[in-house]
């Protein structure tokens, strides 16, 4: 689905990432960990075409990212659900419209949209907050709404950047269980996090591969967790 081979990324002041090789096969579950500033978010952005690698090859759904035009990137993103740490929303639109935004931009009809939305809001426990504006939501509600928006089109891959960064432990476990459930439905999951407790909790539920960015390179980090 998404494959990085010998990828380097340079912000202009030296390499942030170097010799990164990563393959995300269908229905796999990955954690990406490492200290703040190690390049976790950058690696995720490379995976959904937000950034282009300075060297190496990034293939997104069998297309070379550097050769994709802007429309091709947009179409690929409809197959990738992204959850950001800061959960960006359109603050002037109610939650239900924000969650339904991926359906709106992909031109789905109103009936299927409404059905999907109601099911999904119920699944993430936000039915009663459907008409609320994003600024009035709590951190946990925003995280759940961001997850709902990321999965509403039933994407093949879900990339989550610190999805539990702003929520308490109980809510973290709830979000994790949602992601585990999605993985069991065949979705590929990659979660960037520095929350080792979350990773330990997930490993008891799903066969997850844990990767760590250290000294600009990607390592398998399962043994010490």
């Amino acid at each position, binding site marked *: 689905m998404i494959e990085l081979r010998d990828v380097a990324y340079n912000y202009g002041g030296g390499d942030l990432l170097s010799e990164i090789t990563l393959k995300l096969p269908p229905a796999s579950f990955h954690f990406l960990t490492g200290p703040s500033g190690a390049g976790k978010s950058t690696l995720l952005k490379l995976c959904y075409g937000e950034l282009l690698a300075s060297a190496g090859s990034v293939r997104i759904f069998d297309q070379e990212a550097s050769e994709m035009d802007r429309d091709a990137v947009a*179409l690929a*993103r409809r197959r990738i659900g992204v959850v950001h740490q800061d959960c960006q929303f359109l603050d002037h639109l109610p939650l239900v*419209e924000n969650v339904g935004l*991926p359906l709106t*931009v992909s031109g789905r009809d109103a009936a299927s949209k409404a059905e999907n939305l109601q099911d999904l809001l119920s699944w993430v426990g936000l039915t009663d907050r459907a008409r609320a504006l994003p600024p009035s939501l709590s951190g946990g509600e925003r995280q759940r709404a961001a997850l709902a*928006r990321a999965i509403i089109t039933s994407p093949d891959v879900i990339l989550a950047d610190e999805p539990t960064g702003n929520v308490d432990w109980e809510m973290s476990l709830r979000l994790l269980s949602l992601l585990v459930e999605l993985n069991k439905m065949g979705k590929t999951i990659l979660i960037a996090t520095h929350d080792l407790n979350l990773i330990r909790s997930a490993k008891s539920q799903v066969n997850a591969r844990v990767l760590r960015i250290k000294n600009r390179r990607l390592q398998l980090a399962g043994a010490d967790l």
Partner: protein
Amino acid sequence: MKRWLDILKAGFSGDPQSDRVVPPTGYSAWLIVFTSGAMAFLAVFALALSLAAGRLADRWGAELARTSTVRISAPESQVAAQTKAAINVLTTTPGIASARALTQDEQAALLEPWLGADLPIGSLPIPQLIEVVETDRGYDAEGLRLRLSAEVPGAFLDDHTRWRRPLISAADRLRSLGLFSILLIGLATGAMVTLAANAALAANAQIIRVMRLVGARDVYIARAFVRRFTMRTLAGAAIGTIGAMVAIALLPTASANGGFLTGLGFVGAHWLWPLLIPILAAVAAFWATRTAALRTLKRLT
């Protein structure tokens, strides 16, 4: 052509929900409506000026083309004989359709604007005028002057050319100036909309990032801005156009025979021309916003 029509059609069709992704912009929306209204108002006046100048040039051209005047200045006892001789020369000159001496009443009517209605023309030493109408081919003015000087010593041929040409040229230039003004107003409207669209896009960078994140194509995002700016420009231009048309309708009567100032308006079907201005303004806004939006989207994300 079909491609452009498809782009225009796509710009105004699709999911109206896409309009809602851009938040309301408050007073800046009214600035676009006001500015496009003012531009349309000026454009209608420029159009009226251009059409009036065009009518004037056409009228002068039509009235003065193919007509000439022969003036007989001779002692009173010879006027009749020289007039007869001149008409004889004129009617036998190739390229002249007709020639006739003006009556005293007609000559008095020509002088009336300067000397008044009660002019005793018979008591004044006024030259006899002969009206000459040319055929389509026209005549050799220099050859006719030579013949007249040889056969009618008191005759002087005035073919109107020396003063007709600069007047028609001036009217033509005024018409061109009016059309050029409309072009400038159109470009200024496009520039104004581009600036406003750029500002709106920059102010909504966060929204654009979210839209791109969820898989929106550039044309989808641009459409939301394009529709909004195009509709505001159309509304403003429509108001400005109607206002200007009312103002022009209230000007003194614009008749085909009126002078330039009283003729500054629209006549007959010309009243339909200003209705194109809001449409052209909307098209200019559409292209300006679309170009600005697609360019800015590439830069922002």
